[in-house]
């Protein structure tokens, strides 16, 4: 009997962790990534990783981590799986520590911890303000070690196109495109783990990296993999707006004592530093005295929108507020926050050690994603697993800061182990599948490429993409109004029609980035509609999903998971109950202790 093979698609934190677990089991694993895995989007995570190690003697426990996560997520997450993650988090920190991550240290040589949003405890381990980068590198190094021993084979510079499903609907491998030769290739496997990250690109501009398009998720969705809670999109309160991307200014700036404010007088044109304390409006601290600047992200984001759009208090009438760390001494700032302050300085030309930063909310993260079960990261299609930001478990209706890194590593680990077990127990391995299954999938993908390369039309993919981003950002982020969501969906459908007339300005067959982008764009348009329709249907406000016409959480009607299915060529929304067996839902508010 031939040995089973596992494929991992995506080389961020979740994908690398899954890869390591498979390699440790002794099964061969092929790792696919658009960019060299060391350049994955996980490098952008800044502030830290949560684990209730109680290293500051505050009485923190994993039960409190669980409660903060469930409460922060407005009771939409399935609780037993979140509990497992919170219980495992301290071990994950130990593992990363053993891998040599250069975490900040206390004088005793122990890991230092800082505060983050949505908790009152110092629970966040960190490596300066580039924690994601440091964690990704640690896992990348371990994978490279397994690679040197022949256990892992990397396919960097490949993009996933589709799963190969047999006649029984079981996944038997993938089709992928070599981004240099533009050839479609088939890779048989017994199980495939998707760790394809966020979907920022459907909002045009976001804090996400270029590769975070959600294209893989949308391709799978069309092949029958369900998509859950798509409407829950996190808009991070503090980013630097840019035409190409919204650059994140980590929550750790506030965790280390940074304060958010605007001048009390909207006509105050004095430089920020010369505005006296009494004439500054520290609105988060005034409105949320218990949590202050460290309220969860959805709360802070809506507060900033209220300041700018309702109270008309944005700095000089602009859509911006101050994020101020200039009162903290430079030595501390450099030791704990250098990575992000450097970004601000390089891109804005102002030293945030001396001047308050100007920031505004920006699309950041999707709580929703590929539907997986609440046990072992399996999707509804046999042989397909998912982990990391691309799946929907763990964060409910709003993710707490510094919980993403832990969920990636935890989920990736489970998925790796589960895929190995599944493959070893398969009655009929992929080796027994007739080659016609693979040949017909290759043909289907080749034809798609050929059609795109040869068609004539007047539409440019970049233009359609920009328009999609504007629609999504305007109507499907912070404030959602049903008639606008209906409009957004009809506009998205119009873009889908226009997409059929796109004209590729590059028709070559070598490193054609336009062809790849066009393929991603088609998928993005569909996923944008999944997000929009989910938001339209959900008539309540919960976590990051806010409808002024339905301002309250409605547990009687909406304490349920949205589960989108692709039926007869269209999106169909279904719902299923949330597992609330551990913590009964209660009202979520941050102006007082929970």
């Amino acid at each position: 009997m031939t040995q089973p093979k596992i494929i991992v698609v995506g080389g961020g934190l979740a994908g690398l962790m899954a890869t390591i677990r498979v390699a440790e089991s002794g099964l061969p694993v092929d790792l696919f990534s658009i960019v060299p895995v060391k350049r994955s989007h996980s490098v952008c995570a800044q502030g830290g990783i949560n684990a209730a190690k109680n290293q500051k003697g505050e009485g923190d426990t994993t039960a409190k981590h669980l409660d903060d996560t469930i409460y922060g997520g407005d009771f939409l997450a399935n609780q037993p799986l979140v509990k497992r993650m919170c219980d495992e988090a301290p071990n994950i920190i130990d593992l990363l520590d053993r891998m040599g991550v250069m975490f900040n240290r206390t004088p005793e040589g122990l890991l230092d911890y800082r505060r983050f949003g949505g908790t009152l405890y110092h629970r966040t381990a960190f490596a300066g303000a580039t924690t994601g980068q440091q964690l990704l590198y640690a896992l990348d190094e371990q994978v490279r070690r397994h690679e040197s021993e022949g256990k892992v084979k990397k396919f960097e510079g490949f993009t996933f196109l589709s799963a190969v499903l047999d006649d029984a609907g079981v996944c038997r491998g993938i089709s992928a495109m070599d981004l240099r030769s533009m050839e479609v290739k088939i890779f048989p496997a017994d199980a495939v783990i998707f760790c394809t990250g966020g979907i920022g690109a459907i909002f045009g501009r976001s804090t996400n990296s270029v590769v975070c398009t959600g294209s893989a998720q949308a391709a799978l969705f069309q092949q029958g993999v369900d998509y859950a809670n798509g409407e829950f999109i996190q808009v991070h309160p503090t980013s630097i707006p840019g035409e190409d991307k919204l650059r994140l200014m980590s929550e750790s700036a506030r965790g280390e004592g940074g304060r958010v404010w605007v001048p009390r007088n909207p006509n105050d044109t004095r430089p920020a530093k010369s505005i006296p304390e009494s004439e500054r409006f520290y609105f988060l601290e005034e409105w949320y005295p218990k949590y202050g600047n460290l309220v969860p992200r959805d709360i802070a984001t809506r507060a900033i929108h209220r300041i700018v759009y309702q109270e008309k208090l944005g700095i000089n009438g602009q859509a911006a507020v101050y994020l101020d760390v200039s009162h903290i001494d430079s030595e501390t700032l450099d030791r704990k926050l250098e990575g992000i302050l450097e970004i601000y300085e390089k891109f804005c030309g102002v030293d945030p050690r001396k001047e308050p930063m100007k920031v505004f909310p920006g699309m950041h993260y999707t709580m929703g994603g590929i539907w997986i079960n609440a046990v072992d990261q399996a999707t509804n299609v046999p042989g397909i697993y998912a982990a990391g930001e691309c799946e929907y478990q763990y964060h409910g209706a709003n993710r707490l800061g510094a919980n993403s890194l832990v969920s990636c590593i935890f989920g990736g680990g489970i998925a790796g182990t589960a895929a190995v077990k599944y493959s070893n127990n398969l009655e009929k391995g992929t080796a027994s599948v007739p080659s016609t299954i693979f040949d017909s999938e290759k043909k289907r993908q080749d034809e798609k490429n050929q059609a795109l390369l040869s068609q004539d039309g007047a539409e440019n993919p970049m233009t359609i993409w920009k328009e999609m981003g504007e629609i999504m950002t305007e109507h499907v982020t912070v404030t959602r109004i049903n008639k606008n969501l209906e409009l957004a969906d009809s506009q998205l459908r119009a873009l889908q029609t226009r997409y059929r007339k796109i004209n590729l300005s590059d028709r070559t067959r070598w490193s054609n980035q336009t062809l790849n982008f066009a393929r991603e764009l088609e998928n993005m348009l569909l996923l944008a509609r999944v997000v929009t329709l989910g938001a339209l249907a959900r008539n309540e406000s919960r976590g990051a999903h806010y409808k002024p016409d339905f301002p309250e959480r409605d547990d009687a009607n909406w304490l349920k998971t949205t589960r989108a299915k692709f039926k007869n060529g269209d999106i169909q929304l279904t719902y299923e109950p949330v597992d609330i067996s551990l913590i009964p839902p209660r009202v979520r508010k941050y102006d007082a202790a929970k």
Partner: protein
Amino acid sequence: MAEKKVILKIKRQSSPGQPAHWEEFSLRWRPSMNIIICLRDIAENPVTRDGKKTTPVSYDSNCLEEVCGSCAMVINGKVKMACSALVDQLTQPITIEPMTKFPIVRDLAVNRQFMFDSLQRVKAWIPIDGTYSLGEGPRVAPEIQEKGYPLSRCMTCGLCLEVCPQVNSGNNFVGAAIISQVRLFNMHPTGAMHAKERIRALQGEGGIEECANVQNCVQACPKAIPLTESIAEVNREAWKQSLVGWLLG
């Protein structure tokens, strides 16, 4: 008043075997433009300054905030990251070329696999027993962390290799970034247990002896990593190791 423009001259090459040529573009200026925004403008409207239709420019990019190391290219003769290269800080016309020390893929996109292979050569990792639960890692003095952390921010962008006269097709020199990673892993309490292996991997062809102490690397590093310090320290260790080996014969 005429609209303000950005003039770019970009070196194009359709594939590795093909001859290179230059194309000029004229774009509408906006505040806070960087080179990535310029390349996206061209993708949306791939027409040269003299009105000829062309193809969008191929280039590497991902995070756009200078932490992933993708978008290195030679801009106005100097290698830098395109995302943090702001148009208003560059003299026009802005010339953009691919890096020269790595095989070209197309236009501005290059293949830096050599660097990842070199990381494998020097065993740039901590050899852990497994990912199962084995308790906490070793204690690390804050002083070590403060030295190690800056080294661990190396994003394998390749700028230090591009500016190094010793990096050329003749000698396979791994370059400053890789030597600095050896220092990082040898400084960690667990990594130190295998320091000799990494030093050994840096001896011989393409190893640390190829360094001619020109010190361009440390100037070019976008993360201000003390690369020359790393080279000096690893060099000392390498000498020590050779000497001990010679004495024990």
